[in-house]
């Protein structure tokens, strides 16, 4: 018997939904009422899953907490903040946007923050060290801010090589390291930027999310601020896979936990019209790496004028993968048939900022 735990970070607190069968859900919350929860990481450790979350109070600032009992209790360092910008940077942490487990070392955890910075923890997320190679990149002063702020929001370690990693940021685009973070190179060739005079700049794209193919790790899928792309050479170049989609705008992209070529988008009409296409909340699914697309989402509401943010969707690791989608108007929908149909498992929450799922024995 396995248990599925869906963690939902919102603008005003954290909720958890638990189920032994993915049909009947027990919803718990709110925890940390009135604190924003923009990021949650599911970190596998030898003794069990650790949840690590970024929190932010409008008054009392950002912080990180972790839970070793799937969200029943949370712990914060008493002696110092987990993430503190070094004095010489003159910077202050605004928000933790991403927490990512390392596939090579259970003690290593990565965090992406606003302002644009990447952090590495070697103690399971208790404390983080600034990745200087990226902070000192000459492009950093030229990276911009999306509406939500300027941040590193995507961290993709290479599952086959601990020295290789991709990050993505809004705005700035994709950057990669092949030497363990010492040096970083922009990897945006072929990604169009419609908001600057040069449509194909070296960097500066407003990349919204990138996901890695599980079967072919050098294959990546990218949802941009207009534009959906695939790379078959570890972000060396990108080709559009937007043909056949109702729109090329959106925030999130998910890949199947095991099956290659299988990905999902949650389309949004346009940057000037941030509602589902035709008012139908839906997913777009491809089983051939983006060559063709199918509309999914039976059970999702119509008409709907909400939006799904970049980290507000997740996929579980069950044999038939489950998808979880949280909306800005506070609904969370679950699918146990890989997106074909959904049921609402939580409603009337504050804006959903992030959704993550853990499957545990």
């Amino acid at each position, binding site marked *: 018997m396995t248990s599925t735990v869906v963690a939902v970070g919102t603008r005003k607190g954290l909720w958890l939904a638990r189920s032994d069968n993915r049909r009947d859900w027990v919803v718990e919350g709110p925890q940390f009422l009135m604190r924003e929860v923009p990021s949650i990481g599911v970190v596998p450790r030898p003794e069990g899953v650790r949840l690590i979350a970024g929190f932010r109070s409008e008054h009392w600032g950002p912080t990180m907490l972790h839970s070793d009992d799937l969200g029943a209790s949370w712990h914060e360092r*008493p*002696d110092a903040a987990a993430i503190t910008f070094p*004095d010489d940077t003159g910077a202050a942490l605004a928000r933790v946007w991403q927490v990512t487990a390392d596939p090579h070392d259970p003690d290593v955890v990565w965090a992406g923050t606003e302002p644009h910075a990447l952090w590495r923890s070697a103690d399971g997320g208790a404390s983080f060290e600034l990745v200087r190679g990226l902070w000192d990149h000459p492009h950093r002063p030229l990276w911009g801010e999306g509406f939500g702020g300027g941040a590193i929001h995507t961290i993709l370690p290479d599952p086959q090589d601990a020295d290789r990693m991709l990050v993505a940021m809004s705005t700035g685009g994709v950057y990669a390291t092949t030497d363990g973070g010492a040096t970083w190179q922009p990897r945006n060739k072929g990604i169009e930027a419609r908001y600057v005079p040069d449509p194909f700049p070296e960097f500066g794209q407003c990349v919204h999310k990138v996901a890695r193919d599980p079967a072919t790790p050098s294959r990546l899928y990218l949802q941009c601020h207009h534009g959906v792309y695939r790379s078959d050479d570890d972000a060396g170049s990108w080709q559009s896979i937007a043909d056949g989609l109702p729109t090329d705008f959106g925030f999130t992209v998910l890949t199947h936990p095991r099956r290659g070529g299988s990905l999902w988008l949650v389309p949004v009409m346009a940057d000037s019209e941030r509602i589902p296409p035709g008012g139908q909340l839906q997913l777009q699914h491809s089983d051939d790496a983006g060559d063709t697309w199918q509309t999914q989402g039976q059970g999702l509401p119509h008409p709907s004028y909400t939006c799904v943010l970049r980290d507000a969707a997740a996929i579980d690791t069950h044999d038939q993968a489950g998808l979880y989608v949280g909306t800005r108007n506070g609904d969370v929908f679950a699918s146990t048939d890989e997106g074909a149909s959904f049921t609402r498992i939580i409603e009337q929450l504050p804006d959903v900022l992030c959704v993550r799922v853990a499957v545990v024995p």
Partner: protein
Amino acid sequence: MTSGRVRILLPGVLRDDAGGVSELGVEVVAATTLRGVLDAATRTCPRLDVRMRDETGALRRHVNVFVNGEDVRRGAGLETPVDAGAVVHVLPAVSGG
């Protein structure tokens, strides 16, 4: 100035970060500033400091601090002089939605 005690009154939401109390006292023996008082008050409870000030040392935007009833943002900020007998109020600003 004469030596003496400065009272720091905290909102209830910060009590856990202050070791379970809603008021801290700092003994001052010479002319000092709000920065010096907060440094001394948070020496044994660093998480309280993180709540009030970011890592550059700046007061967080929506944290208001009053020294003897005067909003320090309208004066010298963290350089506001604090004398023995002063009362420092830390309060959340009106913000959010």
